[in-house]
């Protein structure tokens, strides 16, 4: 029971970092990312590729230590975010949504097929985990502490950022773009930095997840993850960092417990349909929150 609780809290804390990243993009800067899972996958694969033990089948044989792997995966996620950000942020706001959707699709295809780099559909197994030498129980505890410390740092950093001049410009941008431009603020650059920083947090989340479970494969990063993280942010209340974390724990709790119920109630041949029920629930939560409680649980109440 305790080990399950540790597992649950670790995964929820890791996902919280991705939700915080999405909050920076959507809640703070008002940009719609329809491909969250793509950036999470880039982080996970980035860490795996950089730290995997060298083997015949693999193209990259760097065997970097965990910390350098984390840093490398952040750089890769930033580059991917720049690729779509630079193409779309000068244009209609919904073009970013389309382009992020496209990049997630493309990343899924690439990780499935670039076998020498990503291990193809089998993925990469045996990513070296920090604290592994402690034994299973202490590994989990050590990793949880590391994730919580990182989550704390990220959250504190974001809070400071939001109250800095940079954060004030971001808020002003959401209210009136033209005025900001007239005051000499480079609107596109402010948007781009928020988007790239958010994507880096998603990458960090993916890397921490890969380091925790020790494997990456295309089936770990399915499109439903994008919807889950959106539900976490919206239910928690976009715009609020604490809301993002609270929403993550609520939705992840709902998701895992509904999964348990479905597995125990449905006969094995209907398990695939059970996944559909879970997905419908997530979709309904998204739309209903948007309609009935647009500020979520803890979101700031902005005048419409």
């Amino acid at each position, binding site marked *: 029971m305790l080990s399950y609780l540790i597992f649950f809290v670790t995964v929820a804390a890791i996902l919280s970092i991705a939700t915080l990243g999405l909050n920076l993009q959507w809640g703070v800067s008002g940009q719609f990312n*329809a491909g969250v899972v793509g950036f999470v996958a880039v982080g996970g694969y980035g860490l795996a590729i950089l730290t995997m033990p060298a083997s015949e089948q693999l193209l990259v044989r760097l065997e970097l230590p965990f910390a350098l792997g984390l840093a490398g995966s952040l750089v890769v996620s930033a580059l991917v975010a720049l690729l779509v950000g630079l193409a779309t942020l000068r244009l209609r706001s919904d073009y970013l949504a389309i382009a992020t959707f496209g990049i997630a699709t493309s990343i899924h295809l690439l990780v499935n097929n670039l076998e020498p780099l990503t291990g193809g559909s089998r993925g990469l197994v045996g990513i070296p985990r920090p604290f592994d030498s402690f034994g299973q129980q202490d590994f989990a505890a050590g990793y949880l502490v590391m994730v919580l410390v990182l989550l704390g740092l990220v959250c504190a950093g974001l809070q400071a950022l939001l109250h800095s001049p940079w954060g004030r410009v971001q808020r002003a941008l959401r209210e009136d773009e033209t005025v900001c431009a007239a005051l000499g603020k480079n609107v596109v650059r402010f948007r781009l930095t928020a988007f790239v920083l958010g994507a880096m947090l998603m990458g960090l989340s993916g890397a921490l997840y890969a380091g925790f479970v020790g494997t990456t494969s295309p089936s770990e990063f399915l499109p439903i993850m994008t919807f889950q993280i959106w539900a976490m942010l919206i239910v928690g209340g976009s715009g609020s960092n604490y809301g993002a974390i609270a929403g993550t724990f609520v939705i992840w709790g709902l998701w895992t417990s509904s999964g348990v119920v479905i597995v125990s109630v449905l006969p094995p041949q209907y398990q695939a349909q059970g996944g559909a029920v879970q*997905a419908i629930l997530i979709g309904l939560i*998204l739309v209903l929150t948007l309609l009935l409680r647009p500020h979520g649980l803890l979101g700031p109440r902005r005048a419409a």
Partner: protein
Amino acid sequence: MIAQAIVDGFLSGAIVALGAIGVTFSLAILRFANFSHGDLLALGAYSALFVLLMAGSTVPGAAGPLSTPIGPFSFGWALPLAIAFGMLLTVAVSLLLERLVYRRLRRRSADPLTLVFASFGLALVLRNILLLLFGADPYNYTSEIQMAVRLPGPVLVLPDQILVFCVTLVVLALLWVFLQRTRHGMAMRSVAENPVLSSIAGIDIAGTVRLTWIVSATLAALAGVFYGVTVQVRPEMGLNLLLPLFTAAILGGVGSVSGAVLGALLISLCENLFTLVIPTTYKPMIPFVLLLLVLYFRPLGLFAPKGQR
């Protein structure tokens, strides 16, 4: 090889075009990127499948009065019925969603991204309802075997494909007449151009929005059924078609029907020609690469006059 790829590109491009017109309408008239449009295609395809299953057309050697193949084609008279049902259901669902979700959001806030968001969530719901009802396995509309026609080249096409292409051309011609020559068509173009001015000129905006949904959903259902006739239906077909649809609409310039059609043809041609030189598994990435290129270099679409914004 190349001739076959070009012909295949035209045939599948016609289906993408029918879907892309709905996307371009929603970008220009409803003013948001509709992420559930691909799933409207899937909804049309599955509602038609439902009729065909009822008529027994998918069973090998089906002998029902509606399932006997007509001439060289693989389907019987059940298919036109199925198309009609698919269109009706898709229009009904999209009007219902407009009423329950989009209209409320539009009234409450001006931010088009909220609508994008809602469509994103609804897409997930629609897709998984289809998955729940029909399961994850793909379906074929028919198990009849039909003889391919050999065109010079040598190019092989199925009679079904030729019919689908011709019907698409007729539908596009009708749509053109509707948009250019009728009151309602002109209202749609006018709202796309300038909603405020249109409402001052006495155009019923809410009515035009509903009409846009009806036209988009009808075309989407037709595209979905045609996809089912020439390929197969599967729950994630809407998700997979979304990127080509968006790319076609943006490539052709938002709001332009002829642009969407040309964009769709261009994408399908590229997909079919590039897969001659790159592995087929990368085919779904081609629309995205085209999209990035057009957003970098010609964000108003390939056919927009230079220097306009």
